[in-house]
């Protein structure tokens, strides 16, 4: 079976073929190389992985599309999916490819200040809203120069993670 894995920060998803090889073993093929992997899944989202003798204690943590993979202290964020799901994904992400930029709440918190008005022209890097969480104030800046076309953010209101705050076009 073929999966596509996209490492965070990379444009291209790389194909990886996997087939079971008995017990906890799997045959994986990734750009030409083939690996026999002994991967025992523990029941808390972790895998004990042995690749010819080398031991990797792997911890997984799914966060949205990505799975965060912790191996020997290094966290790699990987978006891995089969072909069907990848196609579905493509649809959803197409949107942000346009000029419109949605500034969403990066964490649950409280909008303590809205620094722009609907219709304002903003520079790239200009502060838009200030969100407070855990007693730290975080100023969200505009990713691009443009115009504030939507402004759902209201001062003093609590917001959930990923809540739309500002749209700049």
């Amino acid at each position, binding site marked *: 079976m073929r999966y596509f894995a996209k490492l965070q920060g990379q444009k291209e998803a790389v194909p990886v073929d996997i087939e079971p090889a008995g017990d906890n073993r799997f045959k994986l093929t990734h750009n030409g190389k083939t690996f026999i992997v002994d991967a025992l899944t523990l029941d808390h989202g972790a895998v004990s*992985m042995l690749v010819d003798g080398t031991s990797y204690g792997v911890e997984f943590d799914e966060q949205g599309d990505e799975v*965060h*993979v912790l*191996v020997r202290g290094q966290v790699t964020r990987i978006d891995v*999916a089969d072909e069907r799901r990848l196609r579905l994904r493509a649809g959803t992400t197409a949107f942000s490819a346009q000029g419109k930029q949605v500034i969403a709440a990066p964490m649950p918190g409280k909008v303590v200040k809205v620094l722009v008005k609907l219709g304002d022209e903003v520079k790239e890097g200009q502060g838009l809203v200030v969100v407070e969480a*855990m*007693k730290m104030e975080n100023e969200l800046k505009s990713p691009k120069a443009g115009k504030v076309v939507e402004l759902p953010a209201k001062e003093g209101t609590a917001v959930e993670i990923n809540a739309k705050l500002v749209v700049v076009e």
Partner: protein
Amino acid sequence: MAKIRKILVANRGEIAVRVMRTCKELGIATVAVYSEADRSALHVRTADQAFLVGPPPSRESYLVQERILEAAKKAGADAIHPGYGFLSENASFVRACEKAGITFIGPPASAMDAMGEKTRARQNMIKAGVPVVPGTAEPIATVEEARAYAEKIGVPVMLKAAGGGGGKGMRKVERLDDFESAWRAAKSEAMNAFGNDAVYIEKYLEKPHHVEIQVFADQYGNTIHLNERECSAQRRHQKVVEETPSPILTPEMRAKMGEVAVKAAKAVGYVGAGTVEFLVDVHRNFYFLEMNTRLQVEHPVTEWVTGLDLVAWQIKVAEGEKLPLTEAPTPNGHSIEVRIYAEDPARNFMPSPGRISYLRVPGGPYLRDDSGVFPGYTVPNFYDPMISKLSVWAPTRREAIERAKRALSEYVVKGITTNVRYLKGIVSHPEFVAGDYDTSFLTREHETLQGKEDPQLTEAALLASVVYAYQRDQKRAKTLPQTSSTGGKGGISAWRQSSRRR
């Protein structure tokens, strides 16, 4: 003075738990207070009694003196331990405790008055002949005046909350253009943290070290110091890594700074545990920065090298016992503490509250985890993002560093993002290992501290992620044949579901 039988801990999170641990060992009953956001918190379960004191925002709960005292009366507590932050440096609360006939475990109100307001503290220290950093003698009323003063002494300057420390309500201003926003942020943070938005200005020293001296005094005027802590590894004026002994201190400097710290404490009639913070410049001159009239977050490193329990000492001093020591003990070995925050260093240290789905803490020789969380706990977004303090001890600094790296490599927190890897980056960094790192270290080295990628581990992660996805999908196909239809967000929600069901 009477023995204390029951203590209300007017705090939350790791420090509340830490204080209760010592109480339990001393056979003293404990009372927790909690906000509506903390009903499920560890300190509530750790205490013998627990009382609700209000809604999530600390201004409406942990900072409301009447509520705290009411809980203390209801519980029949004869003493209150304030922890750090919240009401710990609030003189009016100390007076309220006195009026209510409840022992406040900390210095007298008078000492807090003298030291609590940073500006008054500076004046007192100047009187006492303690060197201070140049700056305004008073808080500044308007942003215009403030900006004018900054222009006069010239940037960089520090904006500082007069009401309290701990990095809250503090901003460094490098360019005058940033002055207004920094001013606004400092004032509003100060108000949140201390219920007092007074802010003053100090000249910013270049490449300073933050070195602090732990002092302790009993009710009979006996005052000693317990050596120093090096706290120069800071971000946003928030300490991240602390160690003792300080790698830059000579025995002579230690003695001199200790002497000055004791003098400072005596000058204000101090009682209990306190910390005198100094800035040390490149020429190793030191300046009084402020005195924290309470227990410090980083007190465990001092405990490691002295063998003492500072919280037990606080309680005994409050009971009227004399100090067991008459002078500073020689530090035994070396200790390092790292603060584990629920934040994402890769995304500008964005706080990352949420549910801790899995937790495995390090074990083995000479390490200590002071945690306020547990597996299955949801970290609320109303309070400080620190979830735990990890400290280690070893005979030498070099060994302590290796131990800290080993311990961090065992720390697994899932469900939220933490700074564990960033911390490993810090203690592994050549500048930290060399020992002469100033307060600009973390900002300067931000990129390097993110840690560089090991291609072998990345490949392992890649392979593992495919196995994971494959097994997850196989399992889902077996257990929930229907969900393929429910994947509203392109299958992601379905992934989540299946992971939840597991």
